[in-house]
């Protein structure tokens, strides 16, 4: 009996110490869950691993690139943005990193985000001559505008997103208007996705901006048009990315760098949890397959994260120490 009490006391004590230690190591952490699917699932994976593996009190807060970044930069909260597309915020981010307010951790998507102009695969198959943006712009009749049958349409990126400026400039650069195209404002990601879903439900033409990894590109097979030119960084900074630039030239998207951004506070407080964030990365193929699983099963980000942890052990166990991996596995 004595032994039992002693051992249970010991066990409780050890649990207490273990809890205290891990709480000391990590503590509270808020993770920005961006409002698109790939970021949502990564935020949930981080939450599960940080909570179960590192004993953090990880909480998700919803966000969007600009508001989340501004809040992290100005207020130091949330602590972690797991998937920040840094093209949109490069300048302020570089300033914040130089001043030590924010830190760049892992490159979350190891092969980066892919952006560009896409057409449905069935259009590309039916018209094998269409390979580049210029080719597609020769055929306004294949991509009818929603409110003017005589014109073609280029579906623009949602209002206020950085890619809206880029697409508008490229639209001008390729002379799309003279070739009989209208630039269509889609308003929101939901509007853009809806226009694609509608086109696919009618086997109709669609031409516009999109990006990977996304469930839309997992679900609807699309063909990325070649820009016809190479990415030109100087021209990009001079004009392509500048609102209302007078003389844009054709340019190609570079690979978008997608990083995990962490606040200074959490880098200092997080300990090994920060090392995890500095270490973990996955590729587009993994994310696309997860996203299409999620869409097929109407899963939430949390379901997706659990599915990933259960089925892709080979990937995530490399991110953490074997002890942490064991703890996470035990919690599933």
């Amino acid at each position, binding site marked *: 009996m004595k032994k039992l009490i002693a051992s249970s006391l010991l066990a409780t004590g050890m649990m207490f110490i273990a809890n205290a230690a891990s709480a000391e190591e990590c503590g509270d952490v808020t993770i920005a869950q961006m409002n698109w699917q790939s970021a949502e699932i990564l935020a949930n994976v981080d939450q599960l691993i940080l909570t179960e593996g590192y004993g953090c009190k990880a909480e998700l807060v919803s966000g969007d690139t600009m508001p989340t970044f501004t809040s992290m930069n100005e207020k130091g909260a949330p602590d972690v943005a797991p998937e920040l597309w840094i093209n949109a915020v490069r300048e302020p981010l570089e300033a914040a990193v130089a001043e030590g307010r924010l830190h760049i951790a892992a490159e979350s998507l190891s092969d980066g985000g892919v952006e560009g102009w896409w057409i449905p695969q069935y259009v590309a198959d039916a018209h094998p001559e269409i390979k580049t943006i210029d080719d597609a712009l020769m055929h306004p009749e294949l991509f009818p505008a929603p409110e003017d049958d005589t014109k073609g349409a280029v579906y623009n990126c949602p209002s206020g997103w950085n890619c809206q400026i880029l697409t508008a400039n490229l639209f001008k650069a390729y002379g799309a208007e003279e070739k009989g195209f209208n630039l269509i404002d889609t308003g929101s990601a*939901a509007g853009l996705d809806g226009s694609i879903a509608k086109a696919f439900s009618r086997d109709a033409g669609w031409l516009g901006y999109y990006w990977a990894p996304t469930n839309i590109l997992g679900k609807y097979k699309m063909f990325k048009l070649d820009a016809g030119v190479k990415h030109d960084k100087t021209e990009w900074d001079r004009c392509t990315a500048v609102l209302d630039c007078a003389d844009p030239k054709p340019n190609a998207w570079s690979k978008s760098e997608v990083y995990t951004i962490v606040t200074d506070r959490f880098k200092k407080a997080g300990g090994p949890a920060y090392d995890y964030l500095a270490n973990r990365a996955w590729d587009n193929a993994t994310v696309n397959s997860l996203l299409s699983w999620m869409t097929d099963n109407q899963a939430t980000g949390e379901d997706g994260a659990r599915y990933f942890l259960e089925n892709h052990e080979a990937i995530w166990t490399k991110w953490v120490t074997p002890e942490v991996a064991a703890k996470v596995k035990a919690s599933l």
Partner: protein
Amino acid sequence: MEWLYNFPSMDIESLRALKKGIDGGFRGFTREYGVYIENAFEPLKQFLIWSERFMLDTPWPLIILLIAVITWVASRNKRIVIGTVITLLLIGYFDMWEDTMQTISMIFVCTVLSIVVGIPIGIAMSRSDRLQSVVNPILDVMQTMPSFVYLIPVVMLLGIGKVPGLIAVVIYAIPPIIRLTNLGIRLVDKDVLEAADAFGSSSWQRLKNVQMPLALPTMMAGINQTIMMALAMVVVASMIGVRGLGQPVLQAINNQYFSLGLFNGLAIVGIAIIFDRTSQAYGKRLQKYQEVVHG
């Protein structure tokens, strides 16, 4: 005892199957009937495009003159007319003319459609308690269901642009005109109706000559509310590609351009006040006119 703390919900598999079934059904429906439904909305789309072209292609002084004349005819109030002209000039000066014209055109069409559809429904509701008990919950749904829930299916059916925007705005803005038409007619004094019956008026005469005129002030309040709610939907509609003042507001929200958001927000407020004062003044004038006739 676990069932006490965890609600005994449907198991995940069947729930998922149910959701997938509904989604699949809807997809099949869009695939099958999307084209016909889109064609059915074609006249409305042409009307919207025509109205926007008219507002954009007419020289701006003519538009200001036109709006001033309309406000004058409706309100007969110099202050309202002057205020309207100043508001429009300010909007133009701050380079929001084009967006504002697109928004006014959209709101105009939405209001006309709401009135044309809403008043007959309101009248029908006032005449049948059974219909009222059916329509009321539908109106509740229309006013409270978050717009995006029905916007996405509408976008999948009709694409992005003016028509889905119009549907979203009308769904949100039509309940006040229906409710207040119904209420206005129901509130007409029983004694007056008895008198009308005693003079041998037919049901149609009773409606046209007695109930409608007496319900008019309430109905005008309904129209006024409809316009206001339509304007409140401008930003939501812009999220599915409706052009106008909502687009820059969205841009401002996403980029923290405070001044851009403020200017365009104020332009929406400006239009709202013009519509509000004009329609209210018109409503008051109608009442006066009625009083003179009856008095």
